[in-house]
């Protein structure tokens, strides 16, 4: 094996060797290596297969844009597919597995380059697999999925932790290269709150790879000095390994911080990711520039590397690319690399410069070729040779590595996230950020500036401008002196290269080559957005960081226009992929959403309740007894016991709102459709709340406990909505009314005690006389309990149709009061009942819920027309309720339904047809809104909304369930199945 790792140099710690494996093969690296640099040091340039053609691919870059070197790292729930080897820090025991190869990296059966590639041209998705249609799901898709694709996500749960945070600052600087470091330091010295983030764990960006000297020090030492001072400033927050992924409204930036490097398999849950939202008064994007590949044949063969990346591996990681390198460049950066290669003892076969008139002065020994190109590189799993094309003649150069530089594209992604379009600059030969950005500026090479000193000056100037906007002057700071720099000034871009014979790749990750783009243009997909989708260029996980500008240049050239006329595709967050774990934060598993438990939850649980989730609440559904075979048996027993004796049910989850104020009565009178002004103290009233469009919004009872104090209940699901609605009315519509609202849902434990013996039960614990005259139907009062030991609220209201009460006590006393009710009720046969029995009881009584109040019903539809006050000048919903259509005679109306044969049944949602009508839309009469088995009636019963239903009691109909192909003969009846004259309520 060739000695790729140089004997000295680099920022690696040779005293800390690390062992790792690649596809099971043991390898060695050092602390300070990335996985990519360690692989290269071990001679492993070939690290993956390409997406479509399964061509061998190597490490192309040294940074975030890496399209090829994607590996799976880690095991089990901690495995991370599609990890960019260039961004992964090496750690002891790292196990990396290559992707997109089968059965192995070296012998891949999908390497179809010569065989199937005619079928994989641009638009192949649309052309090849169109026919026969049935083949798509059964044949084509499974094959494509097996052949193409990236790493596989683990099915195991990620054991680690993620969190979300906000940060606020005066100045956010994104990117800690020379520009960002200088900008942050300048603002930091001025005392402002500065946040500096960088996607790498080591701050300094390209300064860590530079061989130039700055202020008399090596560039990396200079970076270290700046970082040290920044760390000492208490007003500066440095966030390493933190990628700024998006720019959002209000100058808020999204960033994801990798808080832990490697987590050992044996570790418990560890915080690994933090999602930041950073609200910045001003921000500087110092994200640098991305070097552009050159589109020559075989530019994807392992061993062909971006020039800047090769220089990074050489200088920062002390890894030589090989023994003999060809450098192909359109600008001066290739010379900086060549000089460093020669200094490290690597033979530079030639510096091939596409410019005829390059003015750069090169001090090295290497042969310089002006006006030349590499037209093709050759080799299989490693590059062996290149064709040097010059004035139509080809010369072969034997090399083992190739560096390429096609100029630089400023990294402007975030600046375009809020809708601005990049603009092409001929002077910079690049797309620059949109004009007219507010509170965000670009500096350094992200702004198209070349050269370290110029970048530093740009950072200083932009920091000063940003702080001047905030009314602060930055202290003077000298621009650092840079020695020995090849400053790559912008040069004429080189899109298509003459003499190319083999596949020349534009998008490495999605395997799009030059001819694909030509084909797209020829077939009419010449707009960049169309060409992108037709060829899939730029649609891989790297989102075209390396490929988009070349694709645009090639399309422009094919069309004979400027890149400005081709435009660019839209930049959207995220800049690089962000894991779902980080986006979910703590919201998963048991923490996915809050759990609301009633203060009587434990009481219900110890009495055998089965719970059902309704919204965030856990409600007791029924209370099984040992001999009972199914839930229906329990529910029937609970219902019959309420009708015969007494039952107790947890109704704490009903919304409870306390309303106070001199104008509380007037307020209620305006928000309810029925009259509330004259409700006496000590009385409850059923209230009907409409929406402004006239439809029913919610119902519930409101009790007047004192002259200026009311207690409102809402349905469980609408508790939050009703409070918000009332607040809207109080604050916005009638701010002149003196009224205050407070949710007291969680303050009270509330239990319904229902059944003919409920009075006898409660009289044991309520101090006041509950005689029918003393505490009649709809009485509502503060009461004392247990001989004055406890205060509570008692309401004589009934959902079941029986003599019934609701007792509210302070939440903390709920369980002991419910225990006491059970204890004193024992002799009266009391049993707990759940929401299933509650539902049966209310359907038997014909009471509506949101099954009937479904947003399409007005009071008259529900048989509640008489409740709507005609005397009130105004209330919410009054004015729209008088619309003609809402009093139409043909409207659906609430009606009861029973099957003709008590043994037959129907379900909610089934439709009502006339007796022998066919099930068609025209024949539809309405539908069942609620249904249950009624032990009182002895069959299934239902409530339904049926056209003119109130006038059709007694009519035979057919209940049609199309999903189950059921037709059930039934009869429309009065919706009140029990005690139609309400004797029980008043008993």
């Amino acid at each position, binding site marked *: 094996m060739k000695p790729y790792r140089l004997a000295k140099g680099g920022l690696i710690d040779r005293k800390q060797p690390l062992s790792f494996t690649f596809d099971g093969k043991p390898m060695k690296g050092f602390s300070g290596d990335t996985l990519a640099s360690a692989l290269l040091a071990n001679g492993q340039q070939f690290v993956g297969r390409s997406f479509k053609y399964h061509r061998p691919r190597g490490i192309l870059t040294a940074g975030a844009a890496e399209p090829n070197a994607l590996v799976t790292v880690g095991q089990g729930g901690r495995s991370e597919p599609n990890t960019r080897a260039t961004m992964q820090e090496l750690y002891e025991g790292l196990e990396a597995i290559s992707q997109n190869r089968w059965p192995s990296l070296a012998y891949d059966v999908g390497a179809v380059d010569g065989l199937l590639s005619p079928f994989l041209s641009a638009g192949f998705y649309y052309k090849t697999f169109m026919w026969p249609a049935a083949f798509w799901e059964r044949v084509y898709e499974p094959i494509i999925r097996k052949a193409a694709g990236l790493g596989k996500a683990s099915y195991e749960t990620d054991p680690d932790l993620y969190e979300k945070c*906000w940060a606020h600052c005066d100045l956010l600087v994104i990117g800690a290269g020379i520009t960002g470091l200088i900008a942050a330091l300048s603002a930091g010295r001025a005392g402002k709150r500065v946040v500096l983030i960088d996607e790498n764990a080591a701050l300094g960006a390209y300064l860590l790879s530079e061989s130039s000297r700055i202020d008399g020090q090596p560039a990396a030492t200079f970076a270290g000095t700046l970082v040290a001072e920044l760390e000492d400033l208490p007003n500066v927050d440095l966030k390493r390994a933190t990628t700024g992924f998006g720019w*959002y*409204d*209000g100058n*808020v930036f999204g960033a994801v911080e990798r808080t832990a490097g490697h987590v050992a398999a044996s570790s418990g849950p560890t915080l690994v990711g933090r999602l930041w*939202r950073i*609200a910045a008064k001003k921000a500087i994007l110092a994200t640098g520039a991305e070097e552009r590949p050159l589109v020559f044949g075989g530019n994807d063969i392992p061993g062909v590397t971006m020039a800047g990346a090769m220089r990074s591996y050489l200088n920062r990681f002390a890894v030589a690319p090989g023994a003999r390198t060809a450098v192909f460049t359109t600008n001066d950066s290739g010379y900086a690399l060549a000089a460093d290669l020669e200094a490290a003892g690597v033979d530079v076969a030639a510096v091939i410069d596409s410019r005829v008139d390059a003015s750069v002065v090169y001090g090295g020994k290497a042969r310089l070729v002006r006006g030349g190109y590499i037209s093709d590189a050759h080799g299989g799993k490693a590059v062996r040779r290149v064709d040097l094309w010059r004035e139509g003649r080809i010369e072969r150069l034997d090399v083992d590595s190739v560096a390429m530089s096609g100029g630089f594209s400023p990294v402007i992604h975030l600046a375009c996230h809020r809708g601005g379009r990049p603009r092409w600059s001929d002077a910079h030969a690049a797309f620059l950020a949109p004009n007219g950005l507010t509170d965000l500026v670009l500096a350094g090479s992200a702004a198209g500036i070349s050269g370290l000193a110029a970048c530093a000056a740009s950072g200083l100037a932009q920091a000063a401008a940003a702080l001047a906007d905030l009314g602060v002057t930055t202290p003077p700071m000298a621009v650092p002196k840079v020695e020995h720099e090849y400053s790559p000034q912008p040069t004429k871009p080189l899109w298509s290269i003459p003499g190319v014979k083999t596949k020349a790749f534009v998008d490495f990750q999605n395997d799009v080559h030059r001819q694909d783009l030509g084909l797209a243009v020829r077939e009419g997909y010449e707009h960049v957005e169309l060409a992108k989708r037709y060829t899939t260029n730029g649609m891989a996980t790297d989102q075209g960081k390396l490929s988009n500008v070349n694709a645009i240049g090639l399309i422009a050239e094919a069309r004979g226009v400027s890149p400005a006329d081709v435009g660019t595709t839209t930049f959207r967050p995220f800049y690089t992929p962000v894991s779902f774990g980080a986006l979910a934060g703590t919201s998963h598993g048991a923490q996915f959403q809050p759990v609301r438990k009633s203060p009587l939850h434990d009481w219900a649980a110890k009495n055998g309740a089965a719970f059902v989730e309704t919204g965030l609440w856990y409600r007791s559904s029924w209370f099984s007894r040992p001999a009972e075979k199914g839930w229906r048996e329990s529910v029937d027993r609970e219902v019959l016991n309420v009708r015969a004796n007494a039952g107790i049910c947890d109704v704490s989850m009903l919304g409870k709102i306390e309303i106070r104020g001199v104008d509380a009565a007037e307020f209620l009178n305006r928000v309810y459709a029925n009259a509330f002004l004259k409700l006496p103290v000590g009385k409850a009233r059923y209230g009907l709340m409409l929406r*402004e*469009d006239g439809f029913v919004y919610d119902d519930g009872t409101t009790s007047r406990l004192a002259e200026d104090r009311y207690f409102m209940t809402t349905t469980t699901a609408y508790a939050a909505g009703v409070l*918000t609605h009332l*607040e*809207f009315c109080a*604050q*916005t*519509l009638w*701010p002149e009314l003196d009224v205050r609202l407070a949710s007291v849902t969680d303050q009270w434990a509330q239990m319904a005690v229902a059944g003919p013996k409920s009075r006898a039960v409660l009289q044991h614990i309520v101090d006041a006389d509950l005689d029918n005259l003393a505490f009649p139907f709809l009485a509502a009062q503060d009461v004392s309990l247990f001989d004055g030991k406890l205060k509570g609220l008692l309401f004589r209201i009934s959902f079941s149709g029986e003599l019934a009460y609701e007792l509210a006590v302070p939440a903390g006393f709920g369980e002991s009061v419910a225990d006491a009710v059970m204890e004193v009720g024992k002799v009266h046969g009391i049993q707990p009942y759940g929401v299933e029995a509650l539902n049966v009881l209310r359907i038997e009584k014909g009471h509506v819920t949101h099954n009937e109040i479904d947003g399409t019903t007005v009071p008259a539809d529900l048989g509640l027309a008489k409740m709507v006050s005609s005397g009130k*000048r*105004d209330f919410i919903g*009054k*004015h*729209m309720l008088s*619309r003609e259509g809402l009093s139409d005679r043909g409207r659906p109306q609430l009606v009861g339904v029973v099957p003709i044969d008590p043994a037959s049944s129907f379900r909610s949602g089934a439709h009502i047809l006339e007796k022998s009508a066919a099930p068609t839309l025209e024949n539809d009469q309405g539908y069942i809104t609620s249904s249950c088995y009624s032990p009182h009636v002895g069959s299934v019963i239902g409530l339904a909304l049926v056209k003119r239903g109130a006038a059709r009691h007694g009519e035979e109909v057919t209940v049609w369930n199309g999903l189950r192909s059921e037709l059930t003969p039934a009869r429309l009846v009065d919706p009140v199945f029990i005690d139609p004259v309400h004797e029980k309520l008043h008993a």
Partner: protein
Amino acid sequence: MASLIPCPHCGSRPKEEFVVKGAAIPRPAPDAGADAWFGYVYLRDNPRGPYDEFWHHTSGCRRWLIVTRDTVTHDIYASRDAAKIGEATP
């Protein structure tokens, strides 16, 4: 939508704390007539530019606000308590 909304009572807060209701238009007088009520309930402008909307600081002070928001740029120009609906936009 804006990432932060300035509440006149609580200061600048994340938008997740708020719930939007829609156009901040005044409720007609009871006798305003059918057309006025129909317009209030159903008809909305869809302007390009500044727009007054009701926002509720649901997870904050629970006050209803009138937020003047640019439908194009998402900039927020003003935010005031909705009790001031009768007064002109500042």
